[in-house]
């Protein structure tokens, strides 16, 4: 029920001391404003970082070989060696924590100097990778046409190629369907079976992914005389396995198979994305917790301010409350009056803080998207609608609590004492 007299009293009380009302309301306004801005900024930072890893398998480990740094088993230091095809089976059989293995061999090319890929009169310099179909689970691509590599391609060493969309642009006309057509890679003809666009363009292994070509690993080895050499391995590990442990197991096994000194830190090295990802996730969880602690603290300070001011209001209006009670106002009416006032003040101030913060985040977001650069450190700042609603609910409840104590005090004064109060 809308009660004009009640609101008249609220506004009269607030208007009586505009500065005080404003400063009090500002405390709450600032609390919620900061909370939302900080949450939004945290989210923006997080979005930007995770955007870099978007679609990439975050539980992946990469392992490659380098010249040895220690002499071992009769070999001198500085020996170069390669992983081999039979490492794949050995890894799969000995380390059950591995989910998938994607061996890869980079077939050279891609340097702008030499055009290694030719179709008719068109040609271009593109990276050629020998891969297993599993690669698509580590750094997924979106197929625009045709299909990705499959197991049979690898088993039968088929001369098939999956080309990036910029390769297609360079070699084909706009209205041409590349699937089924032939292209010449380093002098050998391959049939195009698919065109892809990369999903994640921030993480790459040399060269623009859109300008690369996938062919089966076995085909690359056979066609270009690589024997059974594997360039490097990408793994993903099973959900409940410890990435660091699996990482070490893989390296130990490969060291043993390639006669590398067990303590040689340099010969077999790699990159553990899982660990990096966990570190970053942990960092953001930390930031989130900090934001909530600081935000709630600021909000609390604002609410305490309101409670304080309501105490003063009650004290100032002791006599008025006394008159009202002499005229027949029940304690409930007085309590509801003061709590309504407190809730009103917090809600209005909080609502403005909320709206302004969301508005500011939106403006920043618009400005950032207008800039449109790919590698932003800040992306889509913003808060969950639910979080905003929760913050508002916290405000209303705390407004009521802030009013409760002063209200209790107001009715605990006997009407005669209140009337005598000068």
């Amino acid at each position, binding site marked *: 029920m809308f009660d004009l007299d009640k609101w008249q009293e609220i506004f009269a009380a607030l208007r009586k001391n505009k500065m005080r009302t404003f400063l009090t309301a500002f405390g709450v306004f600032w609390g919620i404003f900061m909370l939302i801005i900080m949450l939004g900024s945290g989210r923006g930072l997080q979005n930007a970082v995770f955007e870099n890893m978007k679609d990439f398998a975050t539980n992946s480990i990469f392992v490659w070989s380098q010249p040895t740094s220690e002499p071992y088993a009769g070999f001198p230091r500085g020996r170069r060696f390669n992983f081999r095809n039979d490492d794949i089976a050995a890894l799969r059989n000995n380390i059950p924590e591995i989910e998938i293995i994607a061996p890869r061999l980079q077939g050279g090319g891609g340097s702008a100097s030499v055009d290694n890929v030719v179709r008719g009169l068109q040609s271009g310099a593109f990276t050629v990778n020998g891969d297993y179909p599993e690669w698509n689970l580590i750094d997924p691509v979106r197929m625009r046409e045709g299909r990705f590599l499959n197991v049979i391609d690898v088993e039968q060493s088929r001369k098939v190629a999956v080309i990036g969309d910029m390769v297609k642009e360079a070699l084909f006309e706009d209205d041409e369907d590349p699937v089924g057509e032939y292209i010449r890679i380093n002098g050998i003809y391959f049939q195009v079976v698919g065109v892809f666009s990369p999903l994640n363009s921030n993480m790459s292994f040399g060269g623009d992914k859109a300008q690369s070509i996938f062919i089966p690993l076995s085909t690359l080895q056979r066609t270009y005389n690589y024997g059974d050499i594997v360039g490097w391995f990408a793994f993903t590990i099973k959900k409940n396995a410890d990435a660091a442990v699996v990482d070490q197991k893989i390296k130990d096994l490969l060291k043993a198979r390639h006669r590398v000194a067990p303590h040689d830190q340099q010969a077999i090295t790699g990159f553990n994305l899982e660990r990096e990802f966990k570190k970053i996730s942990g960092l953001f969880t930390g930031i989130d917790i900090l934001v909530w602690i600081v935000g709630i603290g600021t909000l609390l300070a604002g609410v305490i301010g309101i409670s304080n001011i309501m105490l003063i209001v009650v004290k100032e209006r002791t006599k008025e409350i006394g008159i009202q009670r002499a005229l027949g106002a029940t304690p409930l009416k007085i309590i509801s009056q003061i709590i309504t006032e407190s809730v009103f003040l917090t809600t209005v101030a909080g609502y403005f803080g909320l709206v302004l913060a969301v508005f500011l985040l939106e403006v920043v977001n618009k400005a950032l998207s207008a800039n449109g650069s790919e590698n932003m450190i800040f992306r889509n700042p913003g808060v969950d609608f639910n979080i905003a609603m929760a913050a508002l609910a916290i405000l209303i409840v705390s407004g009521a609590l802030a009013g409760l104590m002063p209200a209790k005090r107001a009715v605990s004064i006997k009407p005669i004492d209140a*009337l005598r109060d000068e």
Partner: protein
Amino acid sequence: MITLKNIHKSYTVGLNSLHVLKGLDLEIPKGELVSIMGSSGSGKSTLLNILGILDNHDEGEYFLDGRKIDKLSETKAALLRNEYIGFVFQSFNLISFKNAMENVALPLYYKNVSRKKRNKIALEYLDKVGLKEWAEHMPNELSGGQKQRIAIARSLIANPKIILADEPTGALDSTTSYEVMDILKQINKEGITVIIVTHETDIARMTKRVIKLKDGIIEADYIPEPFVHANDGLLVEGVR
């Protein structure tokens, strides 16, 4: 209307207990115009507070319109005050941010009367005290006499059976005092019991009965000079 039997009341001030009312017996019939007199500290304000259910008595019995008043909850007390008693204060106690009409209508607000209806009634009562054209004015735009008349209108609006006036003329000059007293007498003529606390003899003389308090007991209870003659001794019974 009001019956007090052996009323005691003491206040604790620090470690000392101050015995203010020491066994009051008092009977005020319906329709009386009574003044309570006494020097400060005699207990007259305490008595008024107890009569107005603003304060509880410690001992004894208080009947208001046949109803025993004893250890009421604040809520009940507020409802009884609203129903039975109209208050008039020395310092008027109007609410500063409400205009004259809204001030008068306030008791009806606590009775949950609709705004439109209570403002209409408030205007009638303002008319009664001769301030209808001041309805929209704020209290700080009014003189002391006008404020007190508005306070009286406010005390009347809920149709109380008793008006309790605490030094109603204490802040007014004598001309305005008499005007206010005229209004109170007029109210009394309409059948409402009026109890006035005052220390001014000429004000007390305008009432039909004077109760003198001293040190917490009734020192004297008599009909003041003018009324003994004017009223054919109607209230002689009340004289001790």
